[in-house]
């Protein structure tokens, strides 16, 4: 059952690229993908002819071949995709790392480009509903249509079991907003909020408020993964993939509360074992924060605190810059932009290069995850 995961230090992220983030790009997703890709290639000290693999989100509208064409790449040796919906980013890095470690490609690009605000919005159900088909026949007819509602139900359960408070969710939202106010690229740059603002804000999916929800945005991200024994031509230091894990919980509805199942607690032991480090070794975290309560459960799932203690953990500044465990230092999905886990990876790479707007002193090790714990990475400089 527990095959040894040998991903450690086989591959590195050598280039990152991002467009700006906004609410109405006025551009095609392909055009934005090309901008992010070109920036990542240049950041890696490569030219587009060096890219021989491209991986995409299943949910992304841009085919790998179209992006390759726009970059002047005649064909790809390696390509692939991963779903579902938003949780693909770390899993794609894992695929890329396995490909370059095994010579299937030299330089693999992972990208995400989405008009997530001006186009089809996750929060509207347009992207997520399956019109009552498959297992959705047991959820959508009752008005369970978007991920925020499921997250709200889990949040209420956590409040019930552990006494987690509304103010704890607010503590997450405030911490990430504080980080966004240090980051000129963040959509919420220059727009600080207080706990009173939070508690007075509109309730979307009770108990979740507007400030608990990811900031749907337009933008694109790309990064390039190469084998750890490549000759690096960039002036930027490579960031090595030190550990990794994925989890896809089986089924829904049975196994008592599996509507609530979260992969993070299951992948965490393999993640840390593959890297050979412990939670207390991590300097900076990039959690996929589609909704603020998931930060509280992820802190528990990854072993940064005990089960049920995530609420108190986020109070008194522990997850803020300068705190014990800075989380989502660019503002995350709540306050920078919702690029489905990609911008968290970019920010952790930037932290490990010591180039963040909210730099953690001497950051050496970072943890980043996707979705509800569908995949996670430990990165090192």
């Amino acid at each position, binding site marked *: 059952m527990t095959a040894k995961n040998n991903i450690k230090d086989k591959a590195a992220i050598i280039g990152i690229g991002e467009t700006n983030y906004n609410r109405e790009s006025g551009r095609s997703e392909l055009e934005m993908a090309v901008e992010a890709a070109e920036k990542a290639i240049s950041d890696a000290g490569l030219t587009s002819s060096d890219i021989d693999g491209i991986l995409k989100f299943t949910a992304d509208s841009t085919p790998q071949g179209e992006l390759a064409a726009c970059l002047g790449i005649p064909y790809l040796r390696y390509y692939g995709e991963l779903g579902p919906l938003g949780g693909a980013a770390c899993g794609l890095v894992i695929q890329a790392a396995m490909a370059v470690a095994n010579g299937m490609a030299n330089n693999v690009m992972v990208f995400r480009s989405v008009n997530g605000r001006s186009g089809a919005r996750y*929060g509207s159900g347009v992207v997520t509903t399956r019109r*009552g088909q*498959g297992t959705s*026949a047991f959820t959508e007819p009752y008005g369970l249509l978007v991920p925020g509602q499921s997250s709200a139900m889990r949040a209420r359960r956590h409040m019930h079991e552990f006494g987690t408070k509304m103010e704890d969710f607010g503590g997450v939202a405030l911490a990430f907003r504080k980080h966004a106010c240090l980051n000129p690229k963040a959509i919420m740059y220059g727009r600080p909020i207080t706990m009173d603002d939070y508690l007075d804000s509109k309730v979307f*999916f009770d108990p979740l408020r507007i400030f608990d929800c990811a900031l749907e945005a337009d933008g694109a991200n790309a990064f390039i993964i190469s084998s750890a024994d490549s000759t690096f031509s960039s002036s930027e230091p490579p960031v090595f993939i030190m550990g990794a894990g994925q989890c896809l919980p089986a089924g829904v*509805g*049975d196994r008592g509360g599996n509507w609530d199942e979260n992969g993070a607690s299951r992948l965490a032991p393999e993640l840390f074992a593959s890297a050979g480090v412990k939670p207390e070794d991590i300097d900076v975290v990039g959690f996929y924060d589609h909704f603020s309560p998931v930060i509280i459960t992820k802190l528990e799932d990854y072993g940064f605190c005990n089960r049920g203690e995530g609420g108190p953990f986020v109070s008194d500044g522990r997850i803020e810059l300068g705190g014990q465990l800075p989380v989502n230092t660019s503002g995350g999905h709540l306050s920078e932009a919702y690029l489905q886990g990609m911008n968290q990876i970019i920010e952790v790479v930037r932290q490990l290069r010591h180039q963040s707007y909210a730099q953690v002193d001497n950051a050496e090790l970072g943890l980043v995850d996707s979705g509800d714990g569908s995949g996670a990475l430990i990165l090192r400089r």
Partner: protein
Amino acid sequence: MTLVPFPLPVPSIDNQYWFDKCKEHVLVLQQCKLCDQFNHPPRPNCAYCGSSNLHWIESTGRGTIYTFTVTRQPVSRPLLGRIPWVVVEVELNEGVHMISNLIDFQDEDLQIGMTVQVVFEQVDDDITLPKFELVA
């Protein structure tokens, strides 16, 4: 004002029997003949042991509210007339969890742990959905 319906279920070969029984106002669950575990939603094999030796049992239809959310933002504009709506996750006495709605209740009274009993709501000629009511 006519309410915009939520997406109706599209039954498949894997779950047609479950929907057929709902039309008869009977809530059924699959039980594994090998390991006795209850499964939901219906599927060809047991999620616990992989056996295809499943049979249908009639559920007590009774359980408790495991969690719930009150949707106060319409998600999309056509659903504006529906807000607020309550989605509940019910833990049936058999141990499985089901997503559903409550009928005849006041929002402010709702609490995790309340006892509920299944009732059936006919949507059209083909579809009847199991819903729940609070048990005093």
